[in-house]
């Protein structure tokens, strides 16, 4: 009898364990899952979503941040059928990739897009050369912030030695020589990780290509061109040589943290980085006074444009339930209200993409960026338009291997071309 009791208890327990998970389910306010990767705005995102819930009490937003490898996590989630409702994606390639696979909701007809600056829409519009003909020209995300990659320089060091921010490559050479004379490293660099060098290579490539960029990209997509076509190979790689020669000899073991530290402490006068790094530098040393200029790759002032474009966007998952999609759209609408923009600008310190946003509260480097934008002196982030593998593998690793002397210019170009052909 006792035996049977044990047996039946065991069976009941096991059955209960299997079924237990399904029992909890009840009607609640709509919960949206927001997935984002920008690690510099963790607390600010909380503030933003709390402000949203205050004005829309029926919708709750649960935040999930995955700072590094966000794409890995996102893909795994998608593949296992747990797509988040709201997704922060990087502009261009990532948006297009997920749109092409069908994961993102078509936002083309949403009124919220009318409030976006026209120049910012490129970054979220599925391109005319995209593989999936049916969705060309459709918009799949809401562009959220503008960012630039260029030289962030320390104004105090520049003033101390009577230097002016360089506008041409010649001037940059003089600046670096002067800094070296005074035992100051010209550039704080990071060669340990490959991404910064990848940005550098494509930035130099885009600036040197100038007006030839778009025709070349079209040809490249048709497999009829080489990476070397729009530029002079020698001048492109001279930029890398120059960058290395003016960096700390230990840069090979420097990562982003070391780069920020060297710049914030004033050991180095400049860093070639995206403007997002300014926040980290200013947090380390709040007294830092910085300016932001494009990296002058040529001696022609007009050609040295700012490498600036849309950085992050918000997209809605097409696999969410209809009521969640509706709630997610409400959130996107709310993001364009003055209240949300104010948090975005003042707390998150990001440059919004919406028309008529008030930017007066932003620091000097951001004002510099906006000035370039307003004068229309910007180049698009061409790397975002390359196939993902080309940028992630061939450009980033190619540039790094060149810096370490493992590949010469010809081999890097060859490698980029080969990788592009495979796509």
């Amino acid at each position, binding site marked *: 009898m006792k035996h049977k009791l044990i047996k039946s208890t065991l069976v009941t327990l096991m059955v209960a364990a299997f079924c237990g998970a399904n029992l909890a389910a009840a009607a609640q306010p709509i919960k949206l899952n927001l997935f984002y990767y920008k690690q510099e705005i963790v607390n600010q995102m909380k503030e933003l979503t709390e402000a949203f819930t205050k004005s829309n009490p029926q919708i709750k937003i649960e935040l999930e941040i995955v700072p590094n490898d966000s794409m890995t996590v996102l893909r795994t989630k998608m593949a296992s059928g747990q797509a988040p409702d709201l997704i922060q994606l990087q502009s261009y390639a990532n948006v297009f990739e997920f749109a092409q696979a069908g994961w993102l909701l078509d936002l083309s007809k949403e009124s919220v897009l009318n409030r976006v600056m026209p120049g910012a829409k490129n970054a979220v519009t599925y391109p005319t050369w995209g593989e999936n003909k049916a969705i060309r020209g459709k918009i799949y995300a809401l562009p959220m912030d503008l960012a630039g990659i260029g030289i962030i320089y320390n104004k105090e060091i520049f003033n101390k030695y009577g230097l002016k921010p360089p506008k041409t490559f010649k001037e940059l050479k003089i600046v670096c020589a002067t800094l070296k004379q005074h035992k100051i490293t010209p550039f704080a660099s990071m060669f340990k990780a490959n991404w910064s060098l990848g940005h550098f290579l494509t930035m130099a490539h885009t600036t040197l290509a100038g007006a030839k960029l778009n025709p070349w990209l079209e040809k490249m997509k048709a497999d009829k061109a080489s990476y070397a076509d729009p530029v002079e190979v020698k001048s492109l790689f001279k930029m890398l040589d120059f960058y290395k020669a003016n960096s700390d000899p230990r840069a090979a073991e420097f990562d982003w943290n070391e780069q920020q530290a060297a710049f914030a402490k004033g050991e180095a006068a400049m860093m070639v980085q995206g403007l997002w790094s300014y926040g980290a530098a200013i947090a380390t040393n709040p007294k830092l006074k910085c300016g932001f200029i494009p990296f002058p790759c040529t001696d022609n002032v007009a050609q040295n444009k700012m490498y600036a474009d849309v950085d992050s966007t918000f997209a809605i998952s097409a696999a969410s339930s209809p009521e969640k999609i509706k709630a997610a759209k409400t959130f996107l609408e709310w993001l364009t209200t003055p209240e949300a923009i104010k948090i975005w600008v003042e707390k998150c310190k990001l440059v919004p993409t919406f028309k008529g946003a008030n930017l007066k509260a932003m620091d000097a480097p951001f004002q510099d960026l906006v000035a370039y934008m307003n004068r229309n002196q910007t180049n698009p982030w061409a790397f975002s338009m390359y196939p993902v593998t080309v940028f992630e593998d061939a450009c980033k690793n190619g540039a790094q*291997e060149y810096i370490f002397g493992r590949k010469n210019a010809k081999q890097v170009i060859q490698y980029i071309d080969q990788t592009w052909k495979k796509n």
Partner: protein
Amino acid sequence: MIAARKTRIFYFSLFLLPAFLLYATFFIWPLLMGVQYSFTDWNGVVPEIPFNMSRSEFETKVIRQVKARAELAYLLKYYQKSADGQFYNLTHWIKENGRERQLTAAEREKIKAILAKVGISSIKQIGLANYQEMFQADTRFVPRFEKKFLFNEFDDLPTSIKRQHFNNDLLKHLSAREKALVLGSYQLNQGQNAYLLKEHLAESKAEELKTILAEQMYQTVYLPGVIGFTIFFMILNVLLSNFFALLLALLLDHKLRMQNFLRSIFFLPNVLSLVIVAFIWSFVFKLIMPAVTGIPLWLGSTDLAPYCVIIVSVWQACGYLMVIYLAGLQTIPTDVLEAAEIDGANWSTKFKHITWPLLAPALTICLFYSISNSLKAFEVPLALTSGGPGYATTPIVLDVYFNAFMQNRFGYGTAKAVLLCLIIILITGIQLTLMKRREVEL
């Protein structure tokens, strides 16, 4: 007590059967899936069934091709025309009995099967192409020889180059005209046994010289590639960590004061999180080692970084192996050792003829453990050097990770992972059979 047949069946179905099922679902099934993915070029994003298709494509390729009425009706239940009539979209949410629910896995599978019949699948099969690419096109994967350039165009011209370097790395690669130019600018100094740069070179000549040096001054170096590094890492890591672990175990097997304390100390690195370990060591390699040895670059040098990774791995693995060896030492009966002592055997004879043979089971386990762990090395290189500089410290698993998740080549990464799985099974299989043969039973 022999359990009754009925009870045996009861416990089999209650415990063993679920265990087998779990083993199948969590090991065999994923492994088979992995092999299947390794024959595709899946990028990790494309869903298994298309989420939307344009109207014309859907009508010509699906509606006209699916022969069975029931199957077509099933498909049309889930693929619905979009509002503008341009697309057929997959409905992720279905209204049933007034409630909305998500598509179930079974429904997805059935849709996938129907679509596969008419030749529509999102993931392309490419056969063995991934495996071919690994060994032929992937320049980082297999060991090879390559040029390493020694001069950077933006540096100043080197004022002196050692005679040997000058002859081997530069002169050999030059054409007659270039040779004349280089020899016109550099003069052999017998006393220093080096070529010295002449003073007051013309600007144009110096520029030309820089170009020649940048393009032609190189050494041909051996690059181990991902496979080479993994094997190099495995051999050194296995030998060193087992050697030190055995040494520590032998020392701590004696009755020492603070024996237990020392044992815990040596085991501690194994308890620490690997990320913390890597932080501590990168601090050591960046600040302490340069000050002590005078060599400025450790983690940033392609030659030294592999050894840095090995040092950290050995330091980390030692403690764990030591515990296994200690357990092995304690199973050796003291009477045998005492008898040998009475017969006049010294320490080395006792070790050679008694301890070492009787330690064989522990050795087998330790080697097995450290071989398979070294082949699967991931965290230490990732946290310490992130695989760099360049590709100098990238083991296979890290490479798989880069391929699959950084470069969106899930299929290719999986192919490498499958290869690694086979390598591990092969190497550890050989090791186990060889070592089991020489184990002594007491």
